[in-house]
């Protein structure tokens, strides 16, 4: 049976994680493909899975009643999607859709949270990575708000 540990270990988000923790995460992970146009997650849906992108491209969107979707970020291979799965009420705040065929590792959020509660070392290792992810996202959002190219 194929193990996901090598694929998890190769993903930048989990780089440096020890094999014991990778094994635990692998128990919560599954390989999933999304065809072009398929949604990985939708606003207001339960945040059930967190995604590590292995290939492809995902657009993160906000839907406007007038004007349709607007893309606010693009994620590609090596990046992670689902920034706030650990925050109540565990709902997504945006849509994310595959631009073209996208291969991901989907992590079961409930199972992962349980493992983190049982193993605080794992929880801390993941939270450090999240803190970095959020810091990067926060900086990007601020730069987008600044409007570099304002006239």
């Amino acid at each position, binding site marked *: 049976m194929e193990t996901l540990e090598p694929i998890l270990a190769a993903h930048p988000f989990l780089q440096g994680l020890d094999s014991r923790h990778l094994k635990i995460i692998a128990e919560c992970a599954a390989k999933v493909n999304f065809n072009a146009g398929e949604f990985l997650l939708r606003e207001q849906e339960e945040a059930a899975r967190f995604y590590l992108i292995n290939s492809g*491209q995902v*657009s*993160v*969107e906000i839907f406007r009643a007038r*004007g*349709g*979707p*607007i*893309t*606010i*970020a*693009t994620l*590609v291979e090596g990046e992670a999607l689902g920034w706030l799965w650990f925050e109540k009420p565990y709902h997504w705040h945006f849509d994310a859709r595959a*631009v*073209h065929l996208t291969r991901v590792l989907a992590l079961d959020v409930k199972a992962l949270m349980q493992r983190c509660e049982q193993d605080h070392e794992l929880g801390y290792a993941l939270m450090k990575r999240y803190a970095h992810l959020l810091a*990067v996202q926060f*900086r*990007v959002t601020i*730069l*987008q708000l*600044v*409007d*570099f*190219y*304002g*006239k």
Partner: protein
Amino acid sequence: MLNALADPMLPAPFRVLKVNRETGDTFTLTLAPAAGEPGFRFAPGQFNMLYVFGVGEIPISISGDPDQPETLVHTVRAVGAVSRAICGLKRGETLGVRGPFGVPWPVTKAPGWDVLVIAGGLGLAPVRPAVYHLLARRPQFGNLELIYGARTPEDLVFRQELMHWRGRFDFRVHVTVDTAKGDWRGNVGVVPNLISRARFDSEHTMALICGPGVMMRFTVQELLNRGVKMENIYVSLERNMKCGLGLCGHCQLGPVFVCKDGPVFSYDRVRDWFLLREV
């Protein structure tokens, strides 16, 4: 061949051969000497003072190919009285040109290096001559990448050329916009964030950056985080240039005159002034 003019304060008349609309307010003008001289030699990154007779004179970077000096190419955004007048020129009309001025991109030092060209908004215009130069001598360089960002897909300049460059197998082109509607299939995000996707050996990488100040500041920070040395990061600065010769002092930035000592500077040379507020 027109080069450094005999009197650098005297504009030479150039005729408009062609005007291309890049975006809603940005135009590329192709010019040729009105007096019939064979062309205009310049180095990538240099600028000219463009003079619309009876309106005024402004500094504009040269955006054409330095290996094709027969014509002179400038890309201008219509934001003020003079730039609006330049953008309003029609084929056959004349404007004055003084130049070329300034220190160019250090492309002659680039053989053997990986080169990152990073531009935001209309900042692609001043680096385009460097891209032409590098691509014309492609085997001399290591990895060559362009990272370019604009506010929206509609604000991208040189779209056809970007697509052409993207089609090459020896040049990686990353294009991003701050925000986009549903039909955009490219990247959405900010320029500094794309540096993590670029491939380069930080020890042997030269970065050429041109764009809005905030973009350049955060881009430089990302490059430093990735291990690129300060002295190998080059920025093109924009200041209120008037004479182009370092005489009038309008473009002074601390100890340097941007028109004469720049506009291209290695980051280590201008770092203290680059980060200083209200200068």
